[in-house]
């Protein structure tokens, strides 16, 4: 009943969103902890760079990603000359674009949750002999858990719907980099309004589920 193209767009979208969410957890949670609890040189700059994709037009963020990772990019050129491989226009590019676009949502939500943990609890852990990293794992992060999970759900939703930056870095290759938002664009452009409607419905339903989940987690966090 679903066409091959729609099915591939759906699975690709889910795969990209899951991968981007995992990357967000690995990179974003430590980043949120550092921003909430540590004073270091360049903290303001890190905060700014992480938050920018929230404000910038996605195409601008995508442009920066090309400058960084494209075949002639700052990191992309050496990678290409060593391996002959470039990340641009591959599914990995879609994952990277979605990760960067979702990161500010996770970092901001997780950071607020971590900041709301009573510092005396961490101090109590220090006086009981726990070093800071163990205090973070055993006290701070468990107590900020619901806020962090809510942030991850939001990041998943953002990754699922990513369009602009993905188009810039990964392109719109059916079956390879065309995620659902891109497939919707293609369908509308080529006048396949039934297909577009179906995709829009699926994406709307998924987003609703995700939002409700985030809301519940957020309510428990408070």
């Amino acid at each position, binding site marked *: 009943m679903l066409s091959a193209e729609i099915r591939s767009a759906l699975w690709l979208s889910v795969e990209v969103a899951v991968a981007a969410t995992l990357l967000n957890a690995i990179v974003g949670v430590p980043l949120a902890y550092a921003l909430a609890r540590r004073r270091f040189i360049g903290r303001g700059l890190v905060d700014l760079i992480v938050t920018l994709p929230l404000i910038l037009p996605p195409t601008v963020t995508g442009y920066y990603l090309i400058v960084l990772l494209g075949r002639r990019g700052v990191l992309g050129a050496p990678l290409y000359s060593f391996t002959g491989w470039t990340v641009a226009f591959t599914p990995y590019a879609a994952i990277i674009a979605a990760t960067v676009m979702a990161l500010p949502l996770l970092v901001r939500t997780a950071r607020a949750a971590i900041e709301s943990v*009573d510092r*005396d*609890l961490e*101090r*109590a*852990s*220090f*006086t*009981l*002999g*726990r*070093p800071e990293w163990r205090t973070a794992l055993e*006290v701070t992060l*468990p*107590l900020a858990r619901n806020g962090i999970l809510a942030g991850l759900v939001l990041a998943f939703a953002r990754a699922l719907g990513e369009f602009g930056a993905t188009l810039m870095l990964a392109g719109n290759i059916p079956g390879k980099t065309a995620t659902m938002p891109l497939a919707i664009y293609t369908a509308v452009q080529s006048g396949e309004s039934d297909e577009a409607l179906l995709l829009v419905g699926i994406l709307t339903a998924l987003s609703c589920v995700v939002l409700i989940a985030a809301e519940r987690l957020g309510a428990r966090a408070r």
Partner: protein
Amino acid sequence: MSANSPMGLSVQLVKRLPDFSLEVDWQAGSEVVALFGPSGAGKSLTLQCLAGLTRPDRGRIVVGGTVFYDSDAGIDVPTQARRLGYVFQNYALFPHLTVEENVGFGLRARPRDERRGRVGEVLDRLDLRGLAARRPRELSGGQQQRVALGRALAVDPELLLLDEPLSALDAPLRRQLRRELVAVVREWRKPTVLVTHDLSEAFQLADRVVVYEGGRVVQAAPRAELLSAPASAQVARLMGVRNILSGHVVKAAIDRIQLDWRGQVLEAVNSPSHSYLPEAGTEIAFFIRPEYVRLIRKDRSPRDGHHMNTMAGRVVREEDSGTTWTLYFRLDAPGPPVHGDYDLEIEVPRMVYEILEIARDRAWELSVHRGSIHVLPT
């Protein structure tokens, strides 16, 4: 002094913050020390420096022969290695852990069996066995306090730090828990530093009191000495002493001081710890405890010879303080009263107030024993 005794505590700290500076230096033996003073005097900051949670700008902290901090020698032992028991103002129990896990939190480095044994022992001693599986939010204030104490004591700390341990509780519960706290602190016999702004708490729990004001220590003394010989009018005021008065020296000797106040000559015992011999005419501060002022009964004549420093006047106002009445007394002596419309506060037990019919009978003579007039160095 006790500063060099192996169990002692020696604290010298300088810490400057944008709107506050702490500069203190005090010593204590292996006893319970109360840091007493108004809010914002630097007591909690001192405790945080002792714990290593805040780093002083300069100074030296030695606990039981171990140097925790020495700015000259570049020593700063991290909090984790100081072997502390710290009881926070709001207890800071881990809300996601059970009572048992809270108490065992500081023991994770020990083998499992040993840890379980120690936790069980602490739970038994603090009567918490039945609550082992509960979470902190399911406990009463008193139970939370015991868990906080148990968690701190389970690690066998070299130093127990208590930050306003009773301030989170309301009055009746506080009295009961103060008794429990006294029992626990006495039983465990750890060098203890307690922060409090409640004088009765300081007196019940501590052997030695360090009085703080504005980031400085204004007196450090055994508790008995503090009340009988406050180091200054400032200390007396901080301790809530009433009837702090000012007169002029008439004659000073090693054991007695005569002073002129409101046109009367009063005789006082000179300070037992350090006699002052100020010249005649020098202004001198002194205080008279309201509960040591005696009303002279009119129905007992002829007057016996026990009265000295007698003064005549009237009760102008009174306040019902529950078990006692506070009388505001104005001397008949000419000149304006010291405090607006009265000169002295007098406290009498409720029964005395009723028997003497003070509500009806306002004119009285009173006397103060010379030992109850305390002169204060200025």
